[in-house]
């Protein structure tokens, strides 16, 4: 049977590839709206911003998924380290927005 850590790894893989794909969809749509299909009533810069935000969020989701896997597997050290990474990423967002 697959361990919680293995299934977390599988979900993390899925999160990474889905995040990149969705982000690319927004980035390409944003560029298309800005340069090719103007006047469709959608703000291209909003689409581009969403695409960039999704790209930035993708690895963060991967860390969160792994954290859940480590907690379920009761691997305390790894779970604490992943939470530490999330805290550091949160700090970088706060620094970035200040």
């Amino acid at each position, binding site marked *: 049977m697959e361990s919680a850590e293995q299934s977390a*790894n599988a979900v*993390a*893989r*899925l999160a*990474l*590839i889905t*995040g*990149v794909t969705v*982000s*690319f969809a927004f*980035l*390409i749509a*944003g*560029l298309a709206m*800005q*340069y090719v299909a103007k006047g469709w009533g959608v703000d291209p*810069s909003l689409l*581009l*911003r969403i*695409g*960039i935000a999704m*790209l*930035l969020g*993708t*690895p*963060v989701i*991967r*860390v969160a998924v*792994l954290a859940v896997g*480590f907690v379920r597997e009761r*691997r305390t050290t*790894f779970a604490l*380290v*992943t939470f*530490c*990474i999330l805290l*550091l*990423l949160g*700090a*970088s*967002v706060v*620094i*970035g*927005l*200040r």
Partner: protein
Amino acid sequence: MPLTQVLVIFVVGALAGLIGALFGLGGGILVVPILAIGFAVPMHTAIATSLLCVIATSSAAASRNIRLGVANVRLGVLLEPWTVAGAILGGLIAHMLPGVTLMKIFGACIIGMAIPMARGLRERPVEEAPTPSSLDGTYFDGAIESEVRYSVERLPAAMGISSMAGVVSGMLGVGGGIIQVPALTLLCRIPMKAAAATSNFMMGVTAVASAVIYYGRGYVSAPLAAACVVGVFVGSRAGVRLSDRIHGESLRKAFAVVMVVIGIRFLVKAYGIG
């Protein structure tokens, strides 16, 4: 930004991604010089764009490497706080420095990076520790058609070097693999394939930590980033496929020469010579 420029940046980004992937460096190392020198993009914006490219290429490659079991996820997780902390510091340092100083640092670093690139990396024999550890790794190596088992040595040293790689990544917009892969291979005695995959696994998260700082400071140009990220991604996917067929010692040395030329070009521009 005019459409023609967006298309040119897409094509150039694809070439940077292709070449970067061929030499296992990611597109980042070429994106910064191309944008800063070729398109006169401000240095901070070039770095921010490069970091977004690193996130995209690293995320896709990490997904593959986890599936193949080549990336040592537990080791990557233990080293990530160090790379992330370093990247935050690197992003903050870069914000405080003028673009011309970053150019000088980038120029000097890329010349320094060309030396190990030209010399190549000689793996030390991989050994299994007598007592099993939760960091031990196993993966199937298709090239030798057998399972490779290894143990991780000198973890504290890897943590120190990871924070350095994070600072370089955050400050210059390169992935940090050029520092981490030799360190993991030579210090921790991890097979090169596992070292490269584990370093790549960490790169995305590391780049996010500094990219949000650049984003928050207004250094990200959305159309430029979108065109470049998509271009680098497409090119790097093609490069990964090509790299399986190309084994060129002379190509690697030629690329090291290109890196030196780029470094000199940066230094010349930064010091206003000529």
